[in-house]
């Protein structure tokens, strides 16, 4: 502190030093003159005897700094010794802090990646993203624009430099004699230049290559793909590669670190294709003319603001152009539907558009919840360590007293205690960072923690490090306040008189009790949150009517890329079903168009009674064994069978909901309904158990199923119910597909359960994280309570001895101590339950099938915390009850 002060008082000190040394020299000179020397000679001699003036000055100045370093080193050495002498205290404190710091650093790294970090492009703050919002609600977004919209904005905007468009796709890439699926992006020619990225080799696309649909098959390869597929061959530019069966010319290679910039993707793009190659890149659209399709919104738009243009100006320009579009291009196209006519143009900074704008809010809410929970755990951890330090402070009171009496300054003592806190925090910080690396890996491997894929790097970078350091400094300061209070309160007289019951000790115990109450309250809040999310997850899983979804293998197959017509497609699928059915271990096998709980649904028009207007209901297209395969029971009538093929009478199966809504009180079996594509009349032959399609929260909708042989669709999913481990069947099933057509590639491997769980990712991760944090919090609170009571018992040994000598029974002593613990617990529970009651409403929208103030959950959490507290109180209470009055009284 003194050294610190000196730094600012340097001017004054310097003048005084000058005066002092000048005095010496002049005095010496005067003495020599008095002894008969000439003034000249006297001055020379005085200077000579004094030595190097500047060197002396420098040494004098260094005194303070040297002492600071010396004492710091001394304090660190002393602190290390103290910590090593109390390994229990050190271990608990460090572990507690490490858990708190680790959790926060890990979660911060994701918050930073998803929401905070600037984009890695030059002048990234000038990049903006265009999307459509809704006039109805500020929460609804459509992140995409159509190709005609894009061209209109690009050619008319006055505030944007050169609008670029992009979207994700995945393509079949021919590698030797087999094909692999590769993620890629379809981008406008100016995409890279708008972002400010230069090619590693070759060039980007030319404007002319992105002008006519299907004319210029050119491709830019990603650095990784170039390394893997071509062994980093520099001569690859100009080579031909086969994508979706079409030969493309490689024109460039992207730099090593460039792999798009969106984070809401399952995989990073490995190649880029110009927008006008959409007929090849998006085979599923068939002959559809995207170039003129107003309303087919499939492109995201990004741009750089022109120099000098503000966000507000660009926003005004965008809104104005959107109005122009509404008056011209959209007028006729949207005559029948009103949704796009209610769009509003929304301009956002591009670094906020790394996640689809419609989902950004969900991600933010989820991450905020995590950050808040991690913060609470850190708070508990801190208060626990603080409480430990307070206990220790009382124990060390006599040590402090002795040191004060020996003349160690209070400031010096404070500095030393602060050094000790810093040591604990530093060790906790290092351990916490190691924990954070492990935690980040685990978190990043959780499949889709929110309702979309996210590209997350589990690496901790400098920004996370900086965050952790700031966090650690704050914690050190917080703990520093404890010794400060302690240092200020030390009263030598009372310490040496052995008055451990002095006022300062009592107030410190009050502080400890307050901290414990807070810990209990926080842990019960976290536990309630955990139970609510676990029950949400259970309820969501129960919403899936499928029987044993873990034993059903799921593979997506797309024949549209291979340009199969209906006859060839039906033949392929029928043969595949027949072949897979004979594989060992297969119980049943089926095809289905929409796999339920995958986030979307099929809809189709139906005319329930002759003469009605067509009404849209849910629709699915399945092969004969589908219901048997997933385990949906037919409640009435029959399932599809091999006879339900083209040429045979058209049939349909409806769900219970549809039967109830359209034919209430009647038997729908045998009724005729009108269907489209192809237009036909079908007879209802059965009623099947209800199921949800889009996700578990969606209400059950009326739905009908048609046999796949009567309505052909090229993209189907193969579902195989397997006896035993379904993964054993992956290779045999793939081989059958390959044998039928070596160019057909089945997509990712799932089971029905893993597929469903993707949609439950957020529920799952919320439940898992909150449970982990909840248990951690209760454990910490338990340790804290134990520590406080154990300390109280140690301090009151004498008093307890007297009580027992005066006739108090062991059970009354037990009650006395345990009662103290339970009183604190009850206070904490009361505070926690009230807080949870208020906070639970905030997460109400994330819950499913359980009320945010569910009484069973609240009671259960409180009971659990109470039991832990009881155990934590019992151990020191039993120790108190075993106090031998003779020993206790002799002790002093």
């Amino acid at each position, binding site marked *: 502190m*003194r050294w610190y002060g000196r730094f600012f008082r340097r001017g004054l000190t310097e003048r005084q030093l000058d005066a002092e040394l000048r*005095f*010496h020299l002049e005095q010496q000179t005067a003495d020599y003159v008095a002894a008969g020397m000439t003034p000249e000679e006297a001055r020379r001699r005085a200077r000579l*005897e004094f*030595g190097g003036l500047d*060197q*002396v000055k420098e*040494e004098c100045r260094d005194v303070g700094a040297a*002492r600071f370093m010396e004492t710091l080193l001394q304090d660190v050495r002393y602190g290390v010794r103290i910590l090593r002498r109390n390994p229990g205290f050190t271990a608990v404190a460090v572990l507690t802090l490490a858990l708190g710091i680790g959790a926060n650093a890990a979660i911060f790294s994701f918050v930073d990646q998803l929401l905070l970090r600037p984009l890695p492009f030059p002048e990234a703050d000038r990049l903006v993203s265009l999307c459509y919002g809704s006039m109805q609600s500020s929460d609804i977004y459509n992140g995409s624009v159509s190709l005609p919209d894009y061209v209109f904005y690009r050619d008319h905007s006055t505030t944007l430099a050169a609008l670029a468009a992009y979207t994700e796709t995945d393509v079949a890439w021919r590698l030797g004699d087999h094909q692999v699926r590769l993620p890629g992006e379809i981008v406008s020619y100016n995409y890279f230049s708008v972002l400010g990225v230069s090619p590693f080799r070759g060039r980007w696309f030319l404007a002319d290559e992105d002008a006519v649909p299907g004319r210029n098959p050119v491709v830019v390869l990603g650095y990784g793909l170039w390394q893997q597929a071509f062994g980093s061959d520099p001569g690859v530019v100009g080579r031909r590669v086969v994508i979706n069966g079409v030969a493309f010319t490689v024109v460039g290679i992207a730099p090593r670190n460039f792999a798009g910039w969106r984070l809401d993707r399952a995989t990073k793009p490995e190649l880029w294709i110009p927008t006008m190659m959409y007929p090849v890149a998006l085979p599923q659209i068939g002959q559809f003319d995207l170039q003129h399709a107003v309303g087919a919104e499939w492109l995201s738009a990004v741009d750089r603001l022109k120099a000098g243009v503000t966000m507000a100006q660009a926003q005004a320009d965008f809104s104005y152009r959107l109005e122009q579009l509404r008056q011209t291009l959209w007028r006729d196209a949207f005559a029948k539907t009103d949704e796009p006519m209610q769009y509003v143009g929304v301009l956002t900074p591009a670094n906020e558009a790394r996640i689809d704008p419609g989902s950004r809010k969900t991600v933010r809410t989820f991450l905020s919840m995590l950050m808040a929970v991690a913060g609470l755990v850190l708070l508990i951890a801190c208060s626990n360590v603080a409480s430990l330090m307070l206990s220790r402070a009382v124990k060390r009171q006599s040590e402090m007293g002795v040191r004060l009496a020996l003349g160690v300054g209070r400031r010096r003592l404070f500095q030393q205690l602060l050094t000790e806190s810093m040591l604990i925090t530093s060790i906790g910080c290092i351990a916490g960072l190691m924990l954070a690396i492990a935690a980040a890996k685990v978190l990043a491997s959780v499949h889709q923690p929110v309702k979309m894929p996210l590209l997350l790097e589990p690496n901790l970078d400098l920004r996370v490090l900086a965050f952790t350091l700031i966090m650690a400094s704050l914690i050190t300061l917080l703990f520093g306040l404890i010794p400060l209070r302690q240092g200020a309160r030390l009263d030598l007289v009372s310490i040496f008189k052995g008055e451990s019951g002095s006022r300062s000790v009592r107030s410190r115990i009050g502080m400890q009790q307050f901290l414990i109450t807070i810990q209990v309250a926080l842990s019960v809040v976290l536990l309630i949150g955990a139970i609510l999310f676990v029950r949400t997850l259970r309820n969501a899983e129960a919403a899936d009517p499928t029987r044993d979804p873990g034993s059903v293998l799921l593979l997506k197959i797309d024949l549209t890329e291979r340009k199969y017509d209906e006859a060839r497609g039906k033949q392929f699928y029928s043969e595949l079903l027949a072949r897979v059915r004979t594989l060992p271990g297969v119980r049943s096998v089926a095809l289905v168009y929409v796999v339920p709980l995958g986030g979307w649904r099929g809809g189709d028009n139906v005319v329930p009674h002759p003469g009605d207007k067509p009404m849209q209901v849910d629709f699915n297209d399945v092969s004969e064994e589908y219901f048997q395969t997933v385990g949906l029971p037919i409640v009435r009538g029959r399932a599809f069978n091999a006879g339900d093929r083209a040429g045979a009478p058209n049939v349909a199966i409806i769900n219970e909901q549809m039967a109830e809504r359209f034919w209430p009180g009647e038997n729908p079996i045998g009724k005729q309904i009108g269907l489209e594509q192809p237009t036909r009349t079908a007879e209802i032959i059965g009623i099947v158990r209800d199921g949800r399609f889009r996700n578990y929260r969606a209400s059950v909708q009326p739905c009908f199923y048609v046999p796949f042989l009567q309505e052909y669709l090229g993209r189907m999913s193969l579902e195989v119910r397997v006896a035993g481990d379904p993964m054993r069947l992956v290779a045999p099933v793939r081989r059958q597909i390959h044998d039928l057509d070596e160019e057909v590639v089945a997509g990712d491997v799932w089971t029905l359960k893993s597929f469903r769980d993707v949609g439950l990712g957020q529920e799952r991760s919320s439940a898992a994280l909150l449970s982990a944090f909840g248990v951690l919090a209760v454990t910490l609170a338990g340790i804290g309570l134990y520590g406080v009571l154990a300390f109280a018992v140690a301090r009151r040994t004498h008093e307890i001895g007297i009580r027992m000598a005066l006739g108090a029974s062991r059970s009354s002593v037990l009650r006395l101590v345990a009662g103290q613990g339970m009183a604190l617990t009850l206070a904490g529970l009361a505070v926690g339950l009230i807080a949870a009651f208020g906070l639970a409403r905030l997460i109400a929208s994330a819950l499913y099938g359980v009320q945010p103030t569910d009484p069973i959950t609240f009671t259960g959490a409180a009971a659990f915390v109470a039991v832990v507290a009881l155990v934590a109180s019992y151990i020191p209470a039993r120790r108190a009850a075993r106090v031998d009055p003779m020993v206790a009284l002799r002790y002093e």
Partner: protein
Amino acid sequence: MAEQKAEFLKGTLDMLILKIVAMGPIHGYAIAQRVQQISREFFQLQQGSLYPALHRIEDRGWLQAEWKPTDTGREAKFYALTKTGRKQLEAEVANWERITAAVALILRTAE
């Protein structure tokens, strides 16, 4: 003409300074003079090196300094011993005596 002069033993200077200051408040120049006088110019003291030592001891809290006029009326920085300084001096003197006694004993018995 082989006048024998010794460098200060490390740490000895501090003790000498404390001893001199113990006689009453005194400024740096006077301390330098006293060291020379008392040791009969045996110790070769580069006078400048006195000051870092003084400042170090002051910083440790063994000395306290005050600006006061000298006999001639000039302002000078006077050093005085603090309570802890006096304790330190006693400890160092005791320590010094133990060491010299031990060394003397070894020298005598080894003869």
